[in-house]
């Protein structure tokens, strides 16, 4: 079990600017990894299961991983939200999946899962950042 003093020491160590950037990158790449680093393992387990699973469900519902096309502002914003999902997004881009099928009944539901998965991961990154700064 993590004691308060070790958690505080970990926060102090993570408050260095370089470490903070690394923490945010790790937290982005693997949802929940930032919390794991900061000793919040129970939270990390929930995030590492729930967020990639939401992304996977979104893909299975024929949702689309949007391209960075800012001539269509909503498409560009959706692309940023997708990107925030981290590793699931990278893997999807590598295997060229996530094309989406507009005619599928579940297309919009899929998009909703994909986008919200990324946005929730962004909140998780911010939470890990706050913990590292000792705000929580």
């Amino acid at each position: 079990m993590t004691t308060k003093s070790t958690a505080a020491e970990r926060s102090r160590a993570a408050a260095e600017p370089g470490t903070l950037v690394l923490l945010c990158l790790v937290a982005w790449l693997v949802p929940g990894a930032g919390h794991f680093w900061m000793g919040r393992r129970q939270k990390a387990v929930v995030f590492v299961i729930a967020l990639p699973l939401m992304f996977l469900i979104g893909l299975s519902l024929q949702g689309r991983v949007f391209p960075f096309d800012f001539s269509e502002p909503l498409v560009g914003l959706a692309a940023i939200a997708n990107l925030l999902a981290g590793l699931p997004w990278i893997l999807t881009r590598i295997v060229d999946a996530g094309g989406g099928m507009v005619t599928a009944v579940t297309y919009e539901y899929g998009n909703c899962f994909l986008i919200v998965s990324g946005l929730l991961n962004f909140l998780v990154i911010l939470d890990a950042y706050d913990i590292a700064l000792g705000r929580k």
Partner: protein
Amino acid sequence: MSSHFFLLIVFSFFVSAVFGVLLRDDPRQQIRTAAMMFGGFIATAIVLGWLMFPFPL
């Protein structure tokens, strides 16, 4: 997997779980917050669904 209500439940479950864990530190409070949020999602969806029922698409 194409039932609107089923997908609503799945979506609400994941979002509530993440928010519950994010907002609270104590596991009991996390479960309580997540459950309340989940109930809120479902109840709001049903109420809004009924309110929109008279309006044509």
